[in-house]
């Protein structure tokens, strides 16, 4: 049983990993809002980059948009059975 197995197969440890993950996200988002105010002078090319926690927000929006839009295009148009080209 390797290191990963010990951590993933024990529900208690897995729940702890999940809590650390959410804590990490919170830290990153807060850092993104707070740090530029403490250390100003970072160069941003566009005004939208100065929106609080821009990276986190855009990451979440991008991720959801990519999944939803791609699946939609796939279901409506692109996806075919695996033997599509053989028949």
């Amino acid at each position, binding site marked *: 049983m390797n290191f990963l197995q010990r951590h993933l197969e024990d529900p208690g440890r897995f729940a702890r990993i999940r809590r650390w993950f959410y804590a990490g996200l919170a830290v990153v988002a807060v850092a*993104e809002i707070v740090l530029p105010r403490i250390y100003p002078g970072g160069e941003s090319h566009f005004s939208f980059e100065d929106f609080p926690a821009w990276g*986190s927000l855009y990451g979440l929006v991008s991720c959801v948009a990519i999944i939803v839009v791609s699946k939609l295009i796939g279901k409506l148009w692109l996806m075919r059975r695996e033997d599509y080209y053989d028949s």
Partner: protein
Amino acid sequence: MTLEWVHPGLLLILGAWLLPFLKGRVKHVAMLILPAAALIDCLLMKPGTYGVTSVLGQDLVFGRVDRLSLVFSYVFSLMAFLGMIYALHVDDDSQHVAALTYAGSALGVTFAGDFLSLYLFWELMAISAALLVLLRHEPSAVAAGFRYLLVHVFGGLILLGGIVLHWSQTGSLAFGDMGASSGGMAWTMILVAFLLNAAVPPLGAWLPDAYPEATVTGAVFMTAFTTKSAVYVLIRGYAGTELLVWLGAAMAVYGVVYAVLENDARRLLAYHIISQVGYMVCGVGIGTALATNGATAHAFAHILYKALLFMGAGAVLQTTGLRKLSEMGGLYKTMPVTLGLYMIGAFAISAVPLFSGFVSKSMVISAAGEVHRPVIFLMLTLASAGTFLHTGLKLPYYMFFGKDSGQRGQEPPRNMLVAMGLAAVACVLIGVFPGLLYQRLPNPVDFVPYTLQHVTSTLGMLGFTALGFFLLLKHLDPEPTISLDTDWFYRRGSAGLVTLVRGPLARLEFGFVGEIYEFVIRRPVLGVANLLRNFDSLVVDTAIVGVGRSTQTLSQVLKTMVSGNAQHYGLIMAAGILSLLALAIFIR
């Protein structure tokens, strides 16, 4: 070829033919020494022009060595070295010869200073890469290999056409910035051929079609050379072409969309090659010093991490025989080393700070910011989230974790792990010490990747992409389907063409064209022929038969005279003399 300059490409192409004659350990050593020698050769090279040969009154330049060709040659030969380590256990000389020829041709393209030698290596690259697909021998691979070859022969012909046109218009074969003939036919044809090799949609469907069908080790080579040598020639000839900005950004997003739908592990990675090459093409299009530096740096980093990712997926394919994500799962228990090394590649492609993608991709995105292109900037950043979503989360999740499929692969042979390890080291080294790469880029670099804002916003973006992934996980389960791409046109569209030919076209042919032929050509021709025949039988025949008959009659008459009787002859002679005398008397 002068003695002070040895072409590293020729070293590989010619040296490859030694391998079939060697055995065992000696062969293994040779397999590693060849690309190592090519790498050292490139590292020792000084900028200049070498290997100039005169053919047909044109100077062929086999060795244009400058900062741009050098940095590409480093990564190409380094990649050949890593690829050969990965392929060390393979007992198939033809694969090794094909792989080394392929790498050598890519180096040939890199150092080509004129269009003819470029074209020569361009075609050699297509043929040797097709071999790497064909040599998997499975029916699907053979079919994909031939499709690959057909597409690239088509691209090669367009390139050749463009070159000939360019030659006739400018009188020169030299390959450099094409800006002077911008918009012309030659400019367009050469650009189309380059874009085809860079897998820019709609010309790029050959890539996800062929790469997942290649041999486990062959695919690793294929990820490196064709698209990146195309990026190199685009930088060389087409930097600053506005069209490329949009094509590149669209391509980055396109690859991500298809990756959502994809079930085949190596095909998913192949779509991410298209996405990543999109950043480079976009950088070439922007064309500023920072942007071309970014395109070059990203090509360099990309070759290493993408090879690592394909090595990881190849290791799973080799030891479990599985290629579909819907059939994998739970492999982390038996392949933890492969998983760990794969994840380094995944972090590198996702541009996680301290990994190579972070220091290269950010150059292109910053370049888009610098020239104030907000839409391009947002598209590239979105594709960046998509990259992490698929290569960093979806693929490892379904391959190594997820629902336990009960499949138990084992770690691949040691040489494969060593190759993956070295590639992983390179990904981390470039990420931690970006200066190692930056000092070799074509333009001077004053770009600082590790700024506070850049690191925090990247971490935020990646972290919340991961959050989105886990929230929508149940919608992402891979499905056993394939997705339509532009290869439809030559896979099913051609079948449609056949139906068109058999149905409507055939009816048109037999009905309309056939009738016209009947009335306009066949009947008049037959009529004239009939007339001629009648004339022939009535006039010509009669005349000839008549002559024959008269001759026969005359002969019958003459025959009665030739009796063999001397008295008859004497009588006839006497009659003749009498007639002559009578004539002489009467005429006088």
